[in-house]
């Protein structure tokens, strides 16, 4: 069995008195897609930030490509791509300039050509020299997806990738996801509802059970040790 791309053990994150995440047990193998489903505020973004190495867990740990997420070296960070609600794109630079910049940042061999290629891939070649602030939300997210993928990451982290997007943008991002999985990358995507997506096998990880919810104590069972919460649902 191939080594897991993502592995978490009893992962928890607390902000002061607020437990954003607790006891998250997760395993993602190469070429698999996991949709982390939970209501707003359930901790999806927090989880994704921890997996990206941006945030440190307060309990347990997460292994990304076998390395502790807190100690991701440059070599491993290059293999992670993230698309969040904010695009990480400079509004006053053009679409092309943004992609070229990130290509340079990731030390890709031909930044110019890479930028052009990905602009075409997300259908923005006509807007290559338009500043990002002049792009619609859908176009900006498409560009953000291109930004995240141009280094061909082995792990794609998506935070509500389809939120408030037009149909074409949704289609393009779905096709990007399919391509990524087809070439062996893994996807961990946080959503508040499981999307309709064709030709993509995915598992659903229900984060809602792992958040702080008050429920009346049950008669049987009693103490809660660490409960494995991985649920598998096969996609169509």
């Amino acid at each position: 069995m191939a080594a897991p791309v993502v592995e978490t053990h009893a992962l928890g994150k607390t902000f002061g008195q607020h437990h954003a995440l607790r006891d998250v047990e997760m395993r993602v193998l190469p070429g698999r897609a996991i949709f982390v489903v939970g209501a707003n505020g359930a901790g999806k973004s927090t989880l994704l930030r921890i997996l990206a190495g941006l945030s440190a867990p307060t309990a347990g740990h997460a292994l990304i490509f076998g390395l502790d997420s807190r100690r991701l070296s440059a070599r491993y960070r290059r293999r992670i791509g993230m698309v969040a609600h904010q695009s990480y794109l400079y509004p006053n630079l053009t679409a092309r300039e943004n992609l070229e910049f990130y290509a340079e940042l990731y030390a890709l061999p031909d930044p110019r050509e890479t930028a052009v290629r990905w602009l075409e891939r997300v259908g923005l070649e006509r807007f290559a020299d338009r500043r990002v602030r002049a792009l619609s939300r859908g176009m900006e997210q498409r560009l953000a997806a291109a930004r995240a993928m141009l280094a061909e990451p082995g792990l794609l982290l998506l935070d509500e990738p389809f939120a408030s997007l037009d149909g074409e943008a949704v289609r393009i991002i779905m096709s990007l996801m399919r391509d990524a999985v087809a070439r062996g990358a893994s996807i961990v995507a946080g959503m508040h509802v499981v999307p309709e997506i064709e030709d993509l096998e995915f598992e659903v990880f229900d984060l809602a059970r792992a958040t702080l919810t008050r429920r009346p104590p049950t008669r049987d069972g009693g103490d809660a040790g660490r409960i494995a919460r991985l649920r598998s649902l096969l996609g169509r």
Partner: protein
Amino acid sequence: MSSMIRKGLGYTSLAVMLTAIFMVFDWAPTEAEQGIAQRIFYFHVPCAWVAFAAFGIVALASLFYLWLGERIWDDLAYAAAEIGMVFCTLVLLTGSLWAKPIWGVWWTWDSRLTTTFILWLMYGGYLLLRASADDSPQVARFAAVVGIVAALDVPIVIVSVRLWRTIHPAVLITKTGEHGLEDPRMVVTLLVSLVAFTIFFIWLLMLRFAQLRARTRLCRMGQEIALAEVRAGDA
């Protein structure tokens, strides 16, 4: 066990401090030029020593915190900064009280007082930083960085201020430093006072440090209890 040490230290501190006070006001001879006001010197200098030493502790603890990541070092740094600030303020106050009767001004920009004032400002910045943000590990890291950088700056401050003051000797007012102590009783008094203040400082530091440790532990316990409650609810 540690509370026993603290108690012991407290009593020792009291004893030595009383001795020092007696020596300062009764045993040490009156200085020829400055008269009685000179006795402030026996409090002024030890406070300065403590203020700088405390800052060194802040820097070292900050270094360990960044290196090891254990919250205990951060608590130590914070405690040292708070106590150090108190003593630093005392240096400035005693310096002012000393200057007025002797030289007629409330403040003088001589090299040592100036350096201490800069130190006081750096302490203030450190404490303001901690006060203006919540209790997260991120803020603790920020404070640690500030503590280290400020401490590294202190030697340069000392050198530059000293150079600055030698250019304008007219404004310079030399404090009767170590070389000006003619009578050996003065030297002994100073040493005893130094020891008294050092022990006092260590005692205060241990008290405050224990408080911060307790607070950290309580916080953690609160989190664990809340977590356990919810887990029990889930089962």
